[in-house]
């Protein structure tokens, strides 16, 4: 374990930011947003939840995959270059780091998504334990420990310093590279770090959403869950706006499109949402024409189908973004609460 005195944080970030692209949460009008570091920005490390997760840095909302051009009557395909430059994300939360592990299950299994893979290999995750998890947080329900986040390097904030622990080889190499800013930890430091972590766990144990139950969800629950009449009741007031899918750090659905620039065609990928009516529409028809079906699909994917395909990993990490953003309050917490297995269907 190493420590970084808080008064050296700026210099530490500056050194990283000068050597590679560095992304930190920065307070904007809409909330904290991951932003490319520059000497002018002030990191906002107090915000427990950025407006969007740093998913964009690995799976951008929009990215070109290749361009098409016709030259001398011949169609040419020019693939977009993969990311080659190392970059760092500082201040990421454990829930968002776990979300990347879920995305890894999707994008890094055969056939591998080489665009995602290149960014994952080049990105270093410096995650920050959540000193103040809030009332919308429920990461512990999905086996996260807010006091000991996943990532390449995990940071725990103390009163005067940050404690840093390398969790991967990549993380260790990163700490070695910037070792001049760090000091070794003595036993009192380790005790102080453990105390901070205990405080965080104590807060997490009191959070209102801590006792959500996943009983009756997970692999093999399709038959038990698919025909539940409570999907109808729950989805009735869903606006189908798709906000939940766009703020979700795990949602992975995407679209592929051509854009004609006038000088050629850019084939690009962009995020899409299973909550939209045209998501599954084709000329032969639409297999999910109703809002209930789309609503059900989203949660069945996160809670049943996803775990079936991704070694049991749920498609939710309890970050609370949808809880905060859903205009109708029909987020996953409602699903887990109102569709509790032991409750009679009629009680809703």
């Amino acid at each position, binding site marked *: 374990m190493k420590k970084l005195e808080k008064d050296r944080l700026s210099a530490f970030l500056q050194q990283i930011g000068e050597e590679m692209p560095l992304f930190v949460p920065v307070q904007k009008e809409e909330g904290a947003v991951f932003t490319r570091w520059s000497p002018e920005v002030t990191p906002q490390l107090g915000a427990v939840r950025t407006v969007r997760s740093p998913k964009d840095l690995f799976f951008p909302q929009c990215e070109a*995959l*290749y361009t*098409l051009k*016709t030259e001398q009557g*011949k*169609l*040419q*395909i020019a*693939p977009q270059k993969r990311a080659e430059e190392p970059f760092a994300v500082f201040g990421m939360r454990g829930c968002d780091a776990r979300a990347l592990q879920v995305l890894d299950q*999707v*994008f890094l299994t*055969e*056939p*591998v*998504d*080489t*665009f995602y893979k290149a960014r994952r290999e080049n990105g270093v995750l410096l995650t920050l334990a959540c000193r103040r998890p809030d009332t919308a947080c429920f990461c512990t329900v999905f086996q996260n420990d807010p006091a000991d986040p996943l990532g390449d390097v995990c940071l725990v904030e103390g009163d005067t310093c940050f404690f840093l622990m390398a969790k991967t080889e990549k993380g260790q190499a990163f700490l070695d590279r910037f070792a001049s800013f760090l000091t070794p930890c003595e036993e009192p430091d380790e005790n102080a770090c453990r105390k901070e972590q205990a405080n965080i766990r104590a807060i997490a144990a009191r959070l209102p959403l801590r006792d959500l139950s996943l009983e009756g969800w997970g*692999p093999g629950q*399709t038959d038990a869950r*698919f025909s539940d009449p409570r999907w109808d009741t729950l989805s009735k007031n869903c606006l189908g706006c798709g906000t939940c899918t766009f703020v979700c750090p795990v949602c*992975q*659905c*995407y*679209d*592929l*499109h*051509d854009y*004609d620039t006038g000088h050629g*065609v850019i*084939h690009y*990928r962009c995020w*899409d949402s*299973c909550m939209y009516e045209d*998501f*599954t*529409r*084709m*000329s*032969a*028809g*639409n*297999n*999910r024409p109703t809002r209930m*079906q789309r609503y059900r*699909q989203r949660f*069945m*994917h996160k809670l*049943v*189908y996803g775990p*079936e*395909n991704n070694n049991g990993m749920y498609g939710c990490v309890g970050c609370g973004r949808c809880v905060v953003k859903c205009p109708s309050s029909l987020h996953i917490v409602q699903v887990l609460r109102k569709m509790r297995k032991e409750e009679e269907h009629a009680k809703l």
Partner: protein
Amino acid sequence: MPSCNEPLIPQVGVITAITEQTPDVRTFRIEKPEGGKLFLHQPGQCAMIGVPGAGEAMFSITSSPTQEDYQEFSIKRCGSLTDVLHALEPGDCVTVRGPYGNAFPVDTALKGKNLLFIAGGIGLAPLRSVIRYAMDRREEYGTIQIVYGARSKEDLVDLAEIETMWKNQPDVHVYLTIDRPQEGWDGHVGFVPDYVRELPVDLSQTVLVCGPPIMIKFVLAALTDLGYRKDQVYTTLELRMKCGIGKCGRCNIGGKYVCKDGPVFRCDEIGELPDEY
């Protein structure tokens, strides 16, 4: 799996021939620009065909793997991309990536079996790949019975090939039907599921069904009534697809992705999927 390491990056294909099959179905022969097949495939597999600027869509490969020089796609004009495809001419380029999905088990479960093919309309396209494969390796399969129907005589895809080639093969029986009586048609008239009920039943057959969803539904009911088990019947599912590799989320039914785990499903496997296809 796609033949290149980049599953989302297509190859350039050249259309080398177009056959007008029906008023709204054309068969496109596609090869590499320098000639030859773009990739190897198995009967039942699909590929993404794109027209620059218009987008991509998944189509079943209608030619047999035993056709060594090119791939063929029979495509019905029924949407924005297929409109553009139908306006193309021999010599025009398209993008092709694939092959995607699983295949009919021609070298395992189907081998040595008597085969019953049941197709409606453009549903013949994926089955033709298997039919031609079985005809080219005739000694590896038992009897072949083909029931094929369309709205009218003009809507029967591959009719010329059926009349001049399929019907002349040893131990191959072809039963054609059209939905309504028509001048110049002295064959059977009626819907495919009803015709299936009228024909001689051979419960030793392995059945391959493809066509519009409504036809598949009634054919499966007819087969069950006739005594065929669900595990001897194969069909294909068709859902909206974008990536073709089980990642974009579109063709997801239950824990399955039709693009990756399908399009071919044995009917007892389909019964295990949530009813949303």
